[in-house]
């Protein structure tokens, strides 16, 4: 027993030594202290130790696996996640012969509409996929959650805390302890359970896996990984003739005239090592003339071509003597000459020197970068705000999105070839981003529908489905008889024509009170919390201002159930006076539809919008006005944050399933059963394969 424990410790040490756990400091983006040499050196040490103890590990594993007596029904399970793939559109394209491989798979295996989570949002739904439980047990109810002390919206999935101890050295603040980056998704993912039984998994870009958790497998994080500035992805846009424009999701800066063309500065992350935490900057010159254009940075010169993305460029920001923080960007010269315009992507964490942990083991991101070159690491990497703000046009946005897709496809096929036994789960999210931004070209009823534009970009969404068919064909070609494939999405897609500001509705109905008779700006700045009974935050949730939970709570616990019921009754069937349509098909009482230890953190009321509606843009962050309904005039014209009954996802299976009903949380127990493991009692999902079906699967 002692020997086993010692070996396990040694084995764990070999993993930990390779982690850059002490390599990042500071909150927000944090900085890498260790240079690439040290990361490389530690990786070599870890690899050496790993090789050294491999025979012992092998024997231990062999004995344990034999002792457990598992007899997997399959060799490999591959989960090909296509975020937001819509069953209705898939059916249409299959019927039109544009998705022949999917059609064939649906005939030889199964095709179901996959019931999504309540609410129908990616962080919620993929967490159900990972854990097999309902949101009341995994604690993710939206992208956002309220800070109950300040009522301000914060990210629901991650909490970053400053280092507890800092050494003051003149103008520098050197952290002695690590900052903590906490994953707020609770319960445990199925790959952790598989790993506890020595079944290896590759988990690539599955949402809500940041920070990565240790397990027996390899993982690359995705959704909610920040950029180097600590934001969810903010672009930079320089203009020669800037009038100081303000942009959501980005920053506009002015190019100053210089001898060779233009000069400017590139804003980097906050210097968390400095007392004043000033912004780190790089100065540059943009030389643009008849011979071409060149971007001159302190340590490199980059050739620019108009309307072409550069390759990934590594930027180094000097935080302190000997300490640089590294990030990755792509530039696009939008216009050359006298009216020069330059775009830069958000500064992605450099996978070769990540300022925060983005993979498990820590060197896994570096390993992928060494194999395939630099890649986008930002959680939501496709720059939808640059398109909304018309900094990028449709062509540039699509090019960026498909470029990122190519990076991920390479990783996928590499992982597929490396997964000899066990699980590979990957989520591609270009499917989601392109549908979000091009639904206006499919829907003549959308306020931004323009027949010329629709003609030009009508195929943008169709291409997503057609190319998914090609991906599926290439995947199937790599699979054997003993492998099982699931192709799935977390939700479907619908047009987003009109916004509903739930905060404005609550104000008009008297549940929310503002100090200003005109309402409130974002962040509930003018809300009178001492007289407010309910508030909305995020994309579908209404929270009660509960005494004892919220800082200025006024609703007694004894009143809560009645108030939830009252809100649900009033909201269900709410009509848009301008169009006469029902805007909300059903408002769900969280206590009736969710269960588990975290229901108390959920919005008390989850609003299910009708097709065409969604939470209004301003309302998500707590703005209140006299306008409840508004037109959606952004390129972001498709959405899924509506009544879950209206946006199921897809589930294709390479084996026939007898059931014709499936919920996204059923995948986890199904995968466990395929490896002859019982689903834990706390899981809400049920295996989609009965014992007799599993036996049939094993006979293939």
């Amino acid at each position: 027993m002692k020997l086993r424990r010692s070996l396990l410790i040694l084995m764990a040490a070999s993993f930990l030594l390779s982690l850059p756990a002490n390599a990042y400091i500071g909150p927000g983006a944090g900085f890498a202290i260790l240079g690439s040499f040290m990361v490389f050196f530690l990786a070599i040490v870890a690899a050496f130790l790993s090789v050294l103890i491999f025979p012992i590990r092998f024997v231990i594993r062999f004995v344990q696996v034999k002792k457990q007596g598992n007899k997997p029904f399959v060799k490999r399970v591959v989960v090909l996640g296509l975020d937001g793939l819509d069953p209705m559109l898939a059916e249409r394209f299959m019927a039109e012969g544009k998705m022949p491989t999917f059609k064939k798979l649906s005939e030889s295996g199964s095709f179901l509409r996959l019931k999504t989570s309540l609410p129908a949002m990616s962080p919620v739904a993929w967490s159900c996929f990972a854990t097999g439980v309902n949101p009341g047990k995994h604690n993710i109810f939206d992208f956002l959650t309220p800070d109950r002390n300040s009522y301000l919206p914060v990210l629901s999935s991650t909490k970053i805390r400053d280092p507890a101890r800092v050494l003051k050295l003149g103008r520098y603040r050197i952290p002695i302890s690590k900052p903590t980056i906490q994953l707020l998704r609770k319960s445990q993912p199925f790959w952790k359970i598989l790993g506890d039984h020595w079944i290896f998994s590759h988990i690539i870009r599955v949402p809500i896996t940041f920070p990565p958790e240790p397990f027996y497998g390899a993982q690359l994080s995705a959704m909610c990984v920040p950029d180097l500035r600590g934001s969810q992805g903010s672009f930079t846009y320089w203009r020669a003739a800037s009038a100081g424009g303000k942009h959501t999701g980005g920053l506009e800066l002015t190019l100053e005239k210089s001898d060779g063309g233009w000069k400017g500065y590139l804003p980097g992350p906050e210097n968390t090592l400095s007392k004043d935490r000033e912004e780190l900057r790089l100065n540059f010159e943009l030389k643009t003339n008849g011979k071409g254009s060149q971007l001159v940075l302190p340590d490199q010169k980059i050739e620019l071509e108009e309307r072409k993305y550069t390759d990934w460029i590594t930027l180094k920001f000097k935080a302190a003597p000997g300490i640089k923080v590294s990030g990755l960007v792509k530039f696009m010269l939008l216009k050359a000459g006298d009216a020069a315009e330059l775009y830069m992507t958000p500064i992605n964490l450099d996978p070769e020197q990540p300022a925060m942990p983005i993979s498990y083991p820590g060197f896994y991101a570096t390993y992928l970068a060494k194999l395939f070159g630099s890649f986008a690491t930002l959680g939501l990497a496709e720059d939808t705000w640059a398109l909304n703000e018309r900094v990028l046009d449709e062509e540039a946005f699509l090019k960026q999105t498909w470029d990122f897709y190519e990076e991920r496809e390479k990783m996928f096929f590499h992982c597929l070839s490396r997964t000899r036994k066990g699980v590979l789960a990957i989520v591609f999210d270009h499917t989601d981003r392109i549908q979000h931004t091009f639904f206006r070209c499919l829907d003549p009823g959308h306020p931004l529908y323009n027949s010329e534009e629709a003609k030009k970009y009508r195929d943008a969404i169709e291409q997503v489905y057609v190319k998914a068919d090609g991906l599926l064909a290439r995947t199937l070609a790599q699979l054997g008889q003993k492998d099982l494939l699931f192709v799935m999405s977390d939700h479907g897609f619908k047009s987003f024509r009109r916004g509903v500001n739930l905060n404005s509705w609550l104000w008009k109905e008297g549940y929310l009170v503002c100090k200003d008779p005109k309402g409130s700006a974002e962040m509930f700045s003018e809300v009178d919390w001492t007289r407010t009974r309910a508030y909305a935050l995020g994309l579908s949730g209404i929270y009660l201002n509960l005494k004892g939970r919220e800082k200025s709570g006024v609703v007694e616990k004894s009143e809560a159930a009645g108030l939830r019921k009252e809100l649900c009754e009033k909201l269900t069937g709410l009509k848009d006076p301008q169009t006469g349509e029902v805007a909300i098909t059903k408002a769900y009482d969280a206590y009736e539809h969710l269960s588990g230890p975290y229901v108390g953190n959920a919005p008390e009321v989850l609003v299910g919008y009708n097709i065409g509606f969604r939470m209004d843009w301003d309302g998500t962050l707590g703005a209140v006005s006299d306008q409840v309904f508004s037109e959606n005039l952004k390129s972001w014209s498709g959405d899924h944050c509506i009544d879950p009954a209206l946006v199921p996802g897809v589930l294709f299976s390479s084996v026939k399933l007898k059931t014709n009903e499936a919920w996204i949380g059923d995948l986890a127990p199904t995968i466990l059963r395929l490896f002859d493991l019982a689903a834990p009692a706390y899981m809400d999902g049920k295996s989609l394969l009965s014992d007799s079906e599993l036996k049939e699967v094993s006979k293939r």
Partner: protein
Amino acid sequence: MFGGEKIKIKKDLYERVKKFSELAGYSSVDEFVEHTLEKEIKDLEGSDSEDEIKKKLKGLGYIS
């Protein structure tokens, strides 16, 4: 397989916690204990400033 810090509790309390953690829908006793402790210290922790929050949320496609 992968550890964190360990805290000792009495065996009978552990048994009671185990029973109720299963009933409540936690995936493990560890998760129950962590959740209980998190709830207790939540109010003692400070909140991010509005500027810090705005910065962190910037760029999230779903919100403006």
